[in-house]
């Protein structure tokens, strides 16, 4: 081994970390006990939070990065990766999360944005980032800034999958539409969706995003999770859906199995039995404009 050739935080390491999460469920947790329950249930990672999105909605006010002490408590409780959320554009919150030893930073619209013009320059960090997106242009702008993973934004804290579906269809459809385009048309499309031409061409060649793409924002049941997988997600984030359900432990296990067997309706039917009340959802059409999270960052 040549020590002078030791390298950290390369694109391959950051995107590779995201690849290891594929086919998995990442669960929002607010304390060590919930983190252990998630790990036991088969989560591939946990998202360490002060409050789940449904409670962030209810609390109102400015939502910020969680208390570092809480994050450390969760890091110490589990062996699976721990992720943390920083506000959009708040690169110091991201620096703090990196210093705490968080395995991935979510630059998240669920928190109140700190910068309405710029996202964090993610390429400069050793820790990998995941970012939300509603369509192909937004996803590729985030990749261009250095995101190693994308997740559809959906509408967090609603327990309503409709926006997650809309965003996954927009991204997958946006990529399918590139197929058959010649190079001039690809350049034109890149301009139209405000994305880098290089990345648009890469998507056209790969037939998918160049990074892992999870689904998030409104997944509340095993069926919701399997729906997102069948629509093309590489895995799912479940936020309020687990710890706002009647039986978090059984719901967590059921969602892990539904993702594993996303194309086997018999298994999904079996694990969906007797889960009790799912989280009470919100009709996204009844949200006031300032309550909509997905329009934060573009």
């Amino acid at each position, binding site marked *: 081994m040549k020590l002078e050739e030791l390298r950290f935080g390369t694109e*391959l*390491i950051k995107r590779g970390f995201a690849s*290891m999460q*594929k*086919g998995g469920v990442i669960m929002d947790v607010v304390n060590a006990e919930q983190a252990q329950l998630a790990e*036991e249930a088969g989560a591939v*990672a946990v998202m360490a939070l002060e409050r789940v999105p449904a409670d962030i909605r209810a609390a109102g006010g400015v939502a910020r990065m969680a208390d570092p002490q809480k994050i450390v408590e969760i890091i110490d409780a589990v062996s699976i990766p721990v992720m943390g959320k920083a506000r959009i554009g708040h690169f110091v919150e991201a620096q703090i999360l990196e210093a705490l030893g*968080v395995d991935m930073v979510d630059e998240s619209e669920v928190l109140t944005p700190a910068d309405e013009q710029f996202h964090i320059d993610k390429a400069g960090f050793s820790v990998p980032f995941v970012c939300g997106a509603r369509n192909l242009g937004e996803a590729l702008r985030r990749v261009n800034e250095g995101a190693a993973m994308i997740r559809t934004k959906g509408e967090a804290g609603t327990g309503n999958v409709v926006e997650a579906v809309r965003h996954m269809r927009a991204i997958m459809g946006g990529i399918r539409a590139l197929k058959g385009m010649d190079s001039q048309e690809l350049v034109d499309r890149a301009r139209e969706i405000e994305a880098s031409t290089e990345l648009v061409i890469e998507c056209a060649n790969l037939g998918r995003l160049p990074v892992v793409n999870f689904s998030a924002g409104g997944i509340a049941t095993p069926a919701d999770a399997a729906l997102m997988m069948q629509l093309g997600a590489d895995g799912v984030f479940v936020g309020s859906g687990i710890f706002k359900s009647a039986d978090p432990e059984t719901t967590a296990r059921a969602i892990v199995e539904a993702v*594993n067997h996303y194309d086997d309706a018999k298994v999904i039917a079996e694990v969906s039995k007797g889960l009790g009340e799912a989280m009470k959802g919100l009709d996204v059409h009844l949200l006031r404009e300032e309550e909509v999270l997905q329009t934060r960052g573009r």
Partner: protein
Amino acid sequence: MGVKVGVLALQGDVAEHIAAFREALADRPGSLVAPVRKAAGLADLDALAIPGGESTTISRLIGKNGMYEPLAGFGGGVFATCAGMVLAADRVDDPRVRTLNLIPMHVARNAFGRQVDSREVYLDVAGLVDPFRAVFIRAPVATEVGPGTEVLARIPEGVVAVRSARHMAFAFHPELGGDLRLHRMFLEGLGV
């Protein structure tokens, strides 16, 4: 003659393993590389790749899907990376992972620390002329190897590449990065 390779497809970087083996077998007509999600898919395989991912999650799904016995008794060669290396071992430092006992070695999970400690190194591997660009991602190491387990590469933290009979295990990810020399070494060792 073609080679039949399955990739355990419960969780992790399955697609990357499939792509790497397909490329490594491009010059072997009649070869087949396919994901394996059920015990029935293990029949007739010459080799099985156990991918990187979360070893606790994969171990749980192996149990849930009734695949523990079929995997532990798999008759072909196993190509295991990262979480796969943890599963292929016969001893691990974490009771939540039920190892498949395919390779005599003791493995420690997450031997490098957090994700920011994940690294790329140019590694000397026994049997390769030039160093291999090895990507370690929250990687394990073997802290001790049993009789019959050949050490192919080692770093200060521990053993990171081994061979035992027709099995090979790596703490890093030969399926990422496009260098297929270790895949070819494994395929030659199968004797198919």
